[in-house]
C-alpha cells in the first residue's frame, strides 16, 4: 500500500511539473539583406517576406524587394552566431540565448569592414524584425530577421 501511494504521488508530481515546464524545440532564424526599390516590372517577393509584404510596401513605399544576401540558421542551444552577407554588406548575428518568448540577439551591420550599425534586440517567434539601412542607389537596404 505504501509503495503504491508513493508511486501515485510520483506520477502526479511528474504530470504537474511536466505540464508546468514547456518543451523547447530548436527553431530556424532567417536573416536577410534586402534591397527595396521601385521598378516598372517588380519581381515576385521572396517567400520569406510573403507574410508581411503589405506592411513592407506600406512602410517603405517600394514595390520590389530583392534578397541580396541571406542565412538560415537552426538554433539548437540558442547561443550561436552566424553571418548573412552580400558582396559589400554583411550582417553578423550573435544569439546570446533563447527563452520561450524568443532570442536575445546582437546585430552588427558591416559595409565591407566598416561597422555601420549595432543593435541589441529580442527577436520574438511571432514577430519579424525589420531594420532600415542606408540608401543604396535608387533603393534602400533593409535587414530582416524572421523566426520560422
Amino acid at each position: 500500500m505504501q509503495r503504491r501511494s508513493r508511486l501515485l504521488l510520483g506520477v502526479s508530481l511528474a504530470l504537474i511539473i511536466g505540464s508546468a515546464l514547456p518543451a523547447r524545440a530548436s527553431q530556424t532564424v532567417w536573416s536577410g539583406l534586402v534591397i527595396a526599390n521601385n521598378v516598372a516590372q517588380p519581381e515576385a517577393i521572396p517567400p520569406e517576406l510573403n507574410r508581411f509584404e503589405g506592411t513592407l510596401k506600406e512602410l517603405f513605399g517600394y514595390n520590389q524587394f530583392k534578397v541580396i544576401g541571406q542565412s538560415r540558421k537552426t538554433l539548437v542551444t540558442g547561443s550561436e552566431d552566424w553571418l548573412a552577407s552580400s558582396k559589400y554588406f554583411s550582417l553578423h548575428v550573435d544569439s546570446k540565448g533563447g527563452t520561450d518568448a524568443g532570442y536575445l540577439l546582437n546585430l552588427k551591420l558591416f559595409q565591407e569592414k566598416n561597422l555601420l550599425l549595432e543593435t541589441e534586440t529580442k527577436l520574438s517567434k511571432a514577430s519579424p524584425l525589420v531594420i532600415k539601412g542606408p540608401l543604396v542607389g535608387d533603393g534602400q537596404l533593409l535587414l530582416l530577421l524572421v523566426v520560422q
Partner: protein
Amino acid sequence: MKMFEEKWTAWLDDELTGDELVEFEASLPDKAAAEAEKRDAHKLGAFLKEQLQGRAMGNEEFFHHQLREKIERDARAGVAGGKADSPRAWWPIGRLVWVGATSLAIFCICTFFVMREKGPTDQSQYLSQILNARVDPVVSPNATISMFESKKDRVTVLWVDGLQSLPSEYATK
C-alpha cells in the same frame, strides 16, 4: 474431620486406607450397591479419558505454517502502521486531504516560478523588441534612430535615417 461426601469421593478413587477405609466401609448401609457404583464410576472415568483425548491432526504442518504467516503479517502491519488491530483503508479521508493539499502546493510553486519567468507585462511574448541601437558618429554624424511596432503583422521596425548613401553597385549580391 472429613465429611461423608469427601470420604465417598476418596473411597471411589481408592484413596482411603487403613482404619479410615475400614470405618468408612462399615458405615455404608449397602456395601454391594456401593461397590457397584464404584465400578461404574471407574468405567465412566476410563471411558471419558479415552474419548476426551486430543485428536491427532492429519495436516498439522499446514496449519502451523498458516498460523506463523498470519502472526508475521500482523506483526509487520503493527510495526508499519501502529494499528494492527483495525483493517486499513487504502485512501482514508485524512490521507486524501493531505495528498490533495500537497499537490496543490506543488502546483502553486511551479506556477509561481513559470509566471515569474514569463512576467505578465512582458510584451516580448508577442512582439520583437529593440533594446538599444547605435551608429558610428564618425561615419554617420547625422544619423537618427527610432523604433516602432506595426501591429498589423506584428513587425518591429528599427528606423535609421541619415546613414551615408551608397551607389547602386552596392546592391549587388
